[in-house]
């Protein structure tokens, strides 16, 4: 079984949020729902203040707690490792919202079901890139097989940061090339 995943280059990201907007557009999301989000974290003091941005979405985890806990099997893992969501099975119990340590699944009051990133599987099947990947002007997001991403970026990337939950819980398929500041345990989540 293959496992697809994302790579995010924090050192290239300037926090423009184009990926977030492209994602919301592609998935036709109403305000209040996001499948990808850019968060800014700041800290330090003049003359050495710092800020870094982290663009996150579903990590299509190797051991997805959302899938394990979903009572309907609406959350399920595909052959290629993508964690997909079957809206016909979903009963809107929101248990996945409590299960995912990354706060990824989003409940939609209108449809009474949840939704989340499916890595633009329709685009991938047509040989294209996910919307976030193509939209980033800094080329900060990549996607691909985790083994290939690991070979390419494994050395200087991480899965754990002080702002993220412990990766041993779900084994996220994500590689983050972090700035040095991102290892700081003292930080403030930047308000939008």
């Amino acid at each position: 079984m293959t496992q697809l995943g994302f790579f995010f280059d924090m050192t290239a990201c300037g926090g423009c949020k184009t990926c977030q907007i492209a994602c919301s557009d592609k998935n036709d999301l109403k305000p209040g729902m996001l499948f990808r989000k850019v968060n800014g974290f700041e800290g330090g003091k003049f003359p050495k203040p710092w800020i870094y941005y982290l663009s996150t979405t579903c990590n299509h985890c190797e051991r997805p707690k959302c899938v394990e806990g979903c009572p309907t099997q609406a959350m399920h893992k595909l052959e290629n490792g993508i964690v997909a969501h079957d809206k016909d099975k979903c009963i809107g119990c929101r248990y996945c919202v409590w299960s995912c340590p990354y706060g990824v699944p989003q409940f939609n009051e209108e449809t009474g079901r949840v939704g989340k990133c499916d890595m633009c599987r329709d685009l991938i099947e047509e040989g294209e890139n996910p919307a976030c990947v193509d939209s980033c002007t800094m080329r900060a997001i990549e996607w691909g097989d985790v083994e290939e991403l690991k070979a390419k970026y494994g050395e200087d990337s991480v899965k754990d940061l002080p702002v993220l939950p412990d990766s041993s819980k779900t084994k996220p398929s994500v590689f983050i090339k972090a700035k040095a500041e991102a290892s700081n345990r003292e930080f403030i989540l930047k308000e939008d």
Partner: protein
Amino acid sequence: MGEMSLLIFSFALQSAIGIMVFLTLGLFLYENKVFKKAAFTAAGLSILGVLASLAHLGQPLAALNALLNIGSSWLSREVLLSGVFMGLAVLYALLVQFKAEGHGLRKAVGCAGSIVGLVDILAMGKLYSTTSVPVWQGLNTYVDFYATAIAVGALLFLALSYQELKEESKSIYGLAVLASVIIQAAVAISASFDLSIGGMAAQASAEILRGMAVVIFFKWLLILGGAAILLWFSLSKGQEGKTASPLGILSLSVLALIGGQLIGRYTFYVSMVVTSVGLT
């Protein structure tokens, strides 16, 4: 609060399970009693709980889909067990109503209902403690659920079966309730220490609970006070006529203890924080 339906579900089901357990014990302890009021209350509470849980769903009509992942989901297992428990509680009530003889059958249904119910509480504990919500993780959730079932169950059983148990000693109920709430309080205190030294989401929950310190103080005052009143009541035998009104005292205990446990369950849901840095 968004989780009101879950509050009603968990509290009603746990209370019904507790009643069922004490009712079944009563079938073995006392000869030829059926505990009709307690039986109907257990059945009614379990129906109320299951209906409330449907109200939580975005797609209530597809609720049966929740049985599709028994293999790995504690939520699926809990839905199944709660449904079976409700069925057994209703069956017991029907047996009481329509089958005057059949004491053996009632005992069997009572035992089955109690066992399914007690396993169901384990599933409820698992379902909350395996989420990514730190305040729900750990022993406290299980102890809280079982203590609620035992304390509320014993107390309601006693209050509802007061006429039938008039001649019997009531001290075991007083002691069972007091013991369970003391354990509940002890485990809760140690859990709140763990929370304040946990990660970001745990800290956020600890912060919410700190903001509710007064409410939590009243919760324990009511729970422990209710249990103490009950113990005093259950130990003072043969004093009818001397004490004000035994049923009045019992009702006071019921109101205090249930009020306290409901406040506790409310804080359980409002203190939940999944993760501080999510997508919304």
